[in-house]
């Protein structure tokens, strides 16, 4: 059940790449154990926002931020923040499934190995646990050692989900995770998210508004790097307060 406890607090947060501003003065809270959906047209800053949370933006040349993002009370942009630990805490699933060119087992074990886990027995347990949580274990339990590239698109994406679960994150960030998948795989992933929100806080960026309507507890609408409005999903979809949100939901643009 979504709680009222604030897990992430974003205060007057802006992001720049060189002279170009990609995120403008964002103010929003993410509550623990909720699924927050983020909708908006292309280039509205949705993905940039996710990359600001896990600080993957740091890798982009000329990236600069203003404002604060507090996770569990600490500003993640403080100079003495452990970025490695932060990225383990905020697992990210990307739009195109990106399995590494190795076996399914090795894909899921990749994160824990980098964190220093060497014991094979422990890794076995972690992999099995993560694959079960990701809803993939039954389908791959007999071929853990075959190349992940041989799995179907939907299976690969669930593998990517299992991969981040192996690091025991607090948050799961998903950037248009089902945009290239068939309806059945999409459904499987949405089911997994519903189950996962019990233990994790989930932020789901999607360009499919119906998906947000199905899955998200609250929904935020981004446009041109700004947060236009945010609120319980039902309210956003039936009675949006901003005309731009209404236009987008009705398909008048985007």
């Amino acid at each position: 059940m979504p709680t009222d406890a604030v897990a992430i607090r974003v205060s007057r947060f802006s992001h720049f790449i060189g002279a170009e501003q990609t995120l403008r003065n964002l103010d929003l809270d993410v509550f623990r154990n909720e699924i927050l959906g983020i909708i908006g047209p292309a280039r509205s800053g949705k993905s940039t926002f996710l990359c600001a949370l896990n600080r993957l933006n740091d890798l982009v040349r000329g990236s600069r931020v203003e404002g604060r993002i507090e996770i569990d009370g600490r500003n993640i942009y403080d100079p003495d923040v452990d970025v490695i630990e932060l990225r383990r805490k905020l697992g990210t699933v990307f739009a195109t499934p990106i399995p590494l060119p190795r076996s399914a087992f090795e894909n899921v074990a990749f994160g824990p190995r980098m964190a220093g886990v060497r014991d094979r027995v422990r890794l076995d347990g972690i992999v099995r646990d993560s694959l079960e949580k990701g809803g993939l274990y039954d389908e791959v339990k007999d071929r853990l050692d075959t190349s992940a590239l041989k799995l179907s698109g939907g299976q690969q994406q669930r593998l990517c989900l299992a991969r981040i679960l192996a690091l025991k994150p607090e948050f799961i960030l998903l950037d248009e995770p089902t945009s290239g998948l068939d309806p059945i795989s999409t459904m499987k992933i949405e089911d997994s998210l519903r189950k996962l929100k019990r233990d994790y806080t989930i932020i789901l960026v999607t360009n499919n508004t119906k998906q947000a309507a199905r899955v998200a507890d609250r929904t935020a609408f981004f446009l041109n790097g700004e947060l236009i409005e945010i609120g319980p999903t039902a309210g956003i979809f039936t009675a949006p307060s901003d005309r731009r949100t209404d236009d987008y939901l009705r398909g008048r643009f985007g």
Partner: protein
Amino acid sequence: MNRLERKDRLVRLALLAVAFSAVSILAVITVFMFEQGTPIMFKYGLKNFLAGSDWYPSEKSFGLWPMIVGSIYVTFGAMVIGVPFGLACAIVLTEFSSKPVRRVIKPVIELLAGIPSVVYGFIGVVILVPFIRETFGGPGLSVLAASIILGIMILPTIISISVDSLQALPPAYREGSIALGATKWQTVRMALLPAARSGIIASIILGMGRAIGETMAVIMIAGNAVSVPGSILAPVRTLTSNIALEMGYAAGEHRQALFATGVILFLIIMVLNTMANLTSARRKRDRG
């Protein structure tokens, strides 16, 4: 900061040091060459050094002119043979052959590049030199022999870079020309070759660089006489052969004169390579 991140910083520094090795090696080579070679050039005067026709090290006479002319003649001869045949092969490979044929010819030509220069020289000595001697007269060890063998040796360079340039042209060039009713050859002559011009010129300049720098094959077949060749059947010595032939026993100022020859060679090659790079850069810039 995370322990892993600290290790990352160290690794970055180590790699920076390693990366500079390439530049430092070049810097060291250049500095050494010049340190060893330039004093003697100024001692005897640059004009005497470059334009003097007498190379008698034992009598302190260091005139490189015959060798400079030798290098020029031999390189020019190599281009006369290498460029037409090289371009012909490149055109045939890209425009007039089918995929299976191409898959056979291309590796064969790449093999050409792998044959050691001493083997080329040997073939020259054993087959080409006697042939020239019997058919055209003269000692056989000649400008002609060196030009032919060097021409063959630079073929892979010219072919592979020209092929790359031609293949990089957008198919629209070919399709547009054919659509206007041109034959394949007309397309090549009027559309493709001009468009690939910078790449082809770069390949020729690089081929020239290779020809000028070639040593072992030339020593074996060019005759190595220290005189300006009077005809293509006359023997010749190049700058590179000069160094290689005498370095084994040169001492004192003689040795320094050889280093100076190296400096001249080095400068010529640098100029050629820079020209080649600029022409390729223009090619990339033009295509956007």
